[in-house]
Every structure is written in structure tokens, then in C-alpha cells.
């Protein structure tokens, strides 16, 4: 259950609209069921009252939408940012992808988002309603009584390993400021690192072979804001619409992860949107973990204007060959 209520957010947005501070509100719009929430732009209080939602399924990171919407809207755009979204927000500002003056950012605390797949694992298909109270009450068409689920048990992976409840950017903050969390987000990476090369290869072969190259990971990623992706450009020589074989699957994901390395804030959108449940965050976290180990702790988006590790250097950097030596001696 979220600490801030839907009504509080509507009230805030309506006041800012009425006061003329903003002309549009980027928010979550309700869907057919209680969990299929769609990002939407609201312009009036009526629209907000009708369709605006804030619940445990508002996972979408709005930062990337600002690139298009801030440029499109005439006035300022109000955006609600969860703590993890604020990192992407800063990162996009660092890269000059939108005009800060066009945005009014309201930080909202987040207690973690629920993963509908995990809920369905517990109560099966046929959900008729979900009530996000103290416990999540899920009613299905097959049972008379709702199934009561502890929100902790169905948290999305990225929220289980939440790295920070702290808002690193906002014009206004609702609720209390959180803190950076000492998360266990690299544990999974370390587990894979500890496997033998053969096991690692088999693991990733199994995961990446599911890729259908729908590009959802790329299109949802707040770090992927190239005007024209190399994988869409017919003149690049690597453009393709289907993963032709295991090489192309790997190439797409290695290059994508590499291109966002140092800029990826680990918001977890890639894994959330993947229709084939590929744990793409494990690729990004590998880069983050490596760079933290090689070049010192760095969190993309923590501050505006910082230099990412891959566009920086020191004269005493570790040699590519030593990377393995060090790990091998550690092991």
C-alpha cells in the first residue's frame, strides 16, 4: 500500500493546474482491470478525477516521456516521480534531453510496486478486482472470497532490490524524504559470476534465446534516447527486425547494455516490460558492478552533470587483462 493516496495527488495536480503553474500533468490512467495502468497526459481536474490512478501498479517511469512531452506542451508539465524515477530524470538532464524549465517535478514516496505475474502465480488467472489496502486483496471470477496477499511477497524484482528511497531531484516533495538503501541488488550478478563459464553460457543462452526483438526494453529505457538507434538504421549493417540466430540475440543485448553502461540508473524498466521475462537488469547491473569495482562507486543520475565512468579515465586504471586476474585470485 502506498503512503500517499490518489486523492492527495489529484488535489496537488488540480491545484497546480488551477494556479497556472503547469498546463499538463503526466500521470497514470486507469485501465480495464485494476492493474493495467497506462501513462497519460491530463489537462483538467475533471480528467484527473475520472481516470487518474495511483496504486501498486504504477510502475512506468515517466522520465523518458519528458523528452517528448516537455517539448510538445506549451506550458510546464507536472510529472510525478518515484525515487527511482528521479535518477533517470537527472541522467536525462545531464544529457540535455529535455528542458528543465518546462518541467515541474513532484517527488512522491514509493513503497514498491507489485508484479502482476507474481500475483497471478498465487491466485491464478481470471482476476476481477484488486484492492491495494494493507494487504493486496485479489478477487477472481473463480473464487468467492478474495485472496489476501502480503505486498512484500509480490514486489517487483526491482523493488525487492530497491537501491534508494531518496528523491535526488524535485521541485516539490510530497511525504517524507527517504534514504539510499544498502540493497542486495548485485547478489544475483555475483551468483552468475561464480558459475563456471559453461554454466554462465548455458544460463544466458537460455535467457537470451527467448528474445523476440520487440525492442520494448530499448523503447522503455530512459537511457535509450537516441534519435535513431543503430539497430533501426538500415545503413548500419546490423539492423534487423528478428533475432536471426543466437549471435544476433547476444549482439543486440550486449551492445544495448554497453551503450547505456555508466548511464543506466538501474531503474529496472527493461526487465519490467520484457514480454519474455528475460532478466535484462542482470546485464546492466553487471556493468554497474564492474565499474563500481574498477573505478570506484558511481551511481548514474545521483547528481546532474557528473561524468560517467566510461567517458572518464585515470592514468592508473586497471588493465583489461587484470580484470580477470583479480577476480580469479578473489575466488
Amino acid at each position, binding site marked *: 500500500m502506498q503512503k500517499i493516496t490518489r486523492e492527495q495527488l489529484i488535489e496537488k495536480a488540480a491545484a497546480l493546474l488551477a494556479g497556472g503553474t503547469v498546463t499538463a500533468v503526466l500521470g497514470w490512467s486507469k*485501465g*480495464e*482491470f485494476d492493474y*493495467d*495502468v*497506462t*501513462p*497519460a*497526459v491530463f489537462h483538467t481536474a475533471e480528467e484527473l478525477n475520472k481516470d487518474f490512478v495511483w496504486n501498486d501498479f504504477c510502475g*512506468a517511469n515517466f522520465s523518458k*516521456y519528458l523528452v517528448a512531452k516537455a517539448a510538445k506542451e506549451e506550458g510546464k508539465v507536472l510529472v510525478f516521480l518515484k525515487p527511482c524515477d528521479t535518477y533517470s530524470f537527472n541522467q536525462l538532464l545531464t544529457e540535455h534531453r529535455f528542458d528543465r524549465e518546462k518541467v515541474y517535478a513532484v517527488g512522491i514516496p514509493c513503497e514498491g510496486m507489485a508484479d502482476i*505475474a507474481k500475483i497471478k*502465480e498465487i491466485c*491464478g*488467472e*481470471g*482476476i*476481477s478486482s484488486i484492492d491495494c489496502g494493507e494487504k493486496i486483496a485479489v478477487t*477472481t*471470477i*473463480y473464487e468467492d472470497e478474495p485472496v489476501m496477499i502480503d505486498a512484500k511477497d509480490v514486489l517487483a524484482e526491482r523493488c525487492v532490490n530497491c537501491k534508494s528511497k531518496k528523491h535526488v531531484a524535485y521541485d516539490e516533495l510530497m511525504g517524507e524524504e527517504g534514504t539510499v538503501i544498502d540493497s542486495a541488488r548485485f547478489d544475483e550478478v555475483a551468483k552468475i559470476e561464480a558459475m563456471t563459464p559453461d554454466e554462465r553460457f548455458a544460463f544466458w543462452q*537460455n535467457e537470451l534465446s*527467448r528474445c*523476440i*526483438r*520487440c*525492442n*520494448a526494453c*530499448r*523503447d*522503455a529505457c530512459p537511457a535509450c534516447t537516441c534519435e535513431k538507434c543503430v539497430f*533501426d538504421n*538500415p545503413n548500419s549493417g546490423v539492423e*534487423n*527486425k*528478428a*533475432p*536471426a540466430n543466437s549471435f544476433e540475440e547476444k549482439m543486440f543485448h550486449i551492445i544495448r547494455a554497453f551503450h547505456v553502461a555508466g548511464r543506466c540508473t538501474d531503474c529496472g524498466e527493461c526487465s*519490467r*516490460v520484457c*514480454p*519474455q*521475462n*528475460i532478466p535484462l537488469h542482470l546485464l546492466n547491473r553487471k556493468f554497474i558492478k564492474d565499474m563500481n569495482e574498477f573505478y570506484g562507486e558511481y551511481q548514474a543520475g545521483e547528481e546532474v552533470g557528473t561524468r560517467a565512468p566510461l567517458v572518464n579515465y585515470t592514468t592508473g586504471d586497471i588493465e583489461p587483462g587484470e580484470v580477470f586476474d583479480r577476480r580469479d585470485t578473489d575466488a
Partner: protein
Amino acid sequence: MRKCSLDSVNSVFAEIAKAAALYIPADRTDGSAVYTKWEEGVVWSKALNTVRSPKDFFFPQMENLMEFRTSGKNIEIVDTRSEAEDFVVFGVRACDVKSFEILDRVFLTDPVDSYYATKREHGAIISMACTRPSETCFCKTFGIDPAEPAGDISCWKTETELFFQSNTEKGAALLAKLEGVTEECTEEAVDAQKEKINAVMAKLPLADVTTEGFGGGKTKDYFNDPAWDELSEACLGCGTCTFVCPTCQCYDIKDFNTGKGVIRYRCWDSCMYSEFTRMAHGNNRLTQKERFRQRFMHKLVYYPENNDGLFSCVGCGRCLAKCPISMNIVKVMKKIGGENK
């Protein structure tokens, strides 16, 4: 009608697999179901449906069409297809079976697409009546009865037994081969099962979605609807909906230079992609709104106009479940259709 007990379903699979490759829905490591080639040890999934639709078997995401060998100014065209082999797809839901009719009307109308036609000839479909539809299901909207799936053989599953009914010559021949592992039976249990399914269908949250107002000849009514702006506002332009869709059939033909020759292949394409209609001198669909509109207009207006009113959607619910931003055909139908009623 014939039946077997659920405990002995593996012997049925084994019997089918003797003569043809058999694909059944099986759970994979991430928890979702996928059509998997059956062999001893592969377990039939309890999931309602697979993430990817069975259109893959007839219209794969990628298939080689031909090869070119070039030397100097000369080109040689090599047809690289090998002899097609028979295969059986088991556990296809009523909605997905219907999708083959929709694909057939595209690929089997003159001029016939031989790549697709060959696979259709060699493939047999064993369909499966639904037992636990999901909230995302809305096949009834398109006149599909999940209790009466088509296909070469239809199956019904009860708590303990599996029932078989052949619908085509191909199905009858296949069922005849299963005589040793199935037994003759009456239809009572199946009728009871059908009633059960129908009772569930009425309770589904999307039971009231209607195609009323859509169909051929409606282009002018909907094309300039201002609601397209709002609906497409959040669309990321990814291809998820088109790639999980059992009826999306747009494709691209591309060449791959291997260094030793050129492979010409075809792969799925998505009208959601910005490159979809790009030409040397420009693009006629410049924004995501136009691409988004194309997809739904095609399914709800253009396709029925060219195909006797048949809609190019079967209500399988895959796009509802998989869209990263939860925008889908149901929301579009309710918005655009609702406004224009």
C-alpha cells in the same frame, strides 16, 4: 468421440510423436508456457495459453526464402528449402485456431504464398477447449466459442480425462492412429464441460466488449477521430503487441550478406516501427499516432472490409497482458467504438 485418462496422456503424445514432430505447451524456466517439441519428460503445461502464438509454426518470425550466389556480373538463385516434414501442434486454444483462418485469407489467397501453404499442408492442429479463461480473454467478442474449438482434432479436458473429436480428414486419420491409446466414449462428459466453460465466459470482465460499429466501410468514421491522439500518447513504438499477436502478419524481406553469398529471408515486421513505411523519398506515417492507428484500423476496419466482415483479432488477450504500457485493442475499441455508437 474418443477419450483417454489424463494420467495416460503421455502415451498419446508418444503415439503421435512416432509419425510426426509433436509440439505441446510446456512450462519454461521463467514460468510461462511455450510450445516445445515433445519428447519423454516434457510435461504439458497447465497455463491457459502460450506467450508466443502458434502462428510461429506456419509463419515463423524468420525464415530463409532463397539464396543468391554471385560471381562477377552473374547471379544464381538457389531455392534452399528442404523437404517439409509433418508436424502436429497440440493444445491450441479456440482463439488461436481462429487466427489460422485469418492468416489463411492473407497467405492462401491468390497468389498463394507457397512457404506458408507448405507448412499448412504438413501441419495438423489439435485444439483444446479452455477450462480457466483469464480476465484478458474476449474471444466471444469475435464470435469464437472457447468450448467449441476448431482444428483438425478438438479436445476437451475434464478433471480426469481428455476427450478427442476429429473435424477433418487429416484429424480423422490422426485420431485413427490413436486407437490403441484411446477408447470410444459418449459425449455427455464433454457437454457438461462445455456448459461449465460457458458459465465462466459470462462472468469474464471483458464479456461486454463488442465489435458493434466496427467493420468494413468505417474508414471515414474513425480515421480522423481525435481520440487517436490520446490513445497513442503513451505508445512506446515497440513491437510487443504485433509480435505476440496470433493474427499480425506483416513481414519484411531482407538480405543478409554472409561473405560467401546472400541469404534472402523474411521476418516479421511491425507497423509500430518507424521504419515500416520509410521509402527513399520519405515516410507517409511520420508519427507514432499514425502507426498506432494503422494497427487498429487494420484489425477492425480494413481487414473486415477486404474479408467479408471477418475481424483480424481473435481476443486471445496476449497484447493485453504484454503491452509495456497496457494500451491495447480493448481500450481502443471501447474508446473509439463507444464514442461513435
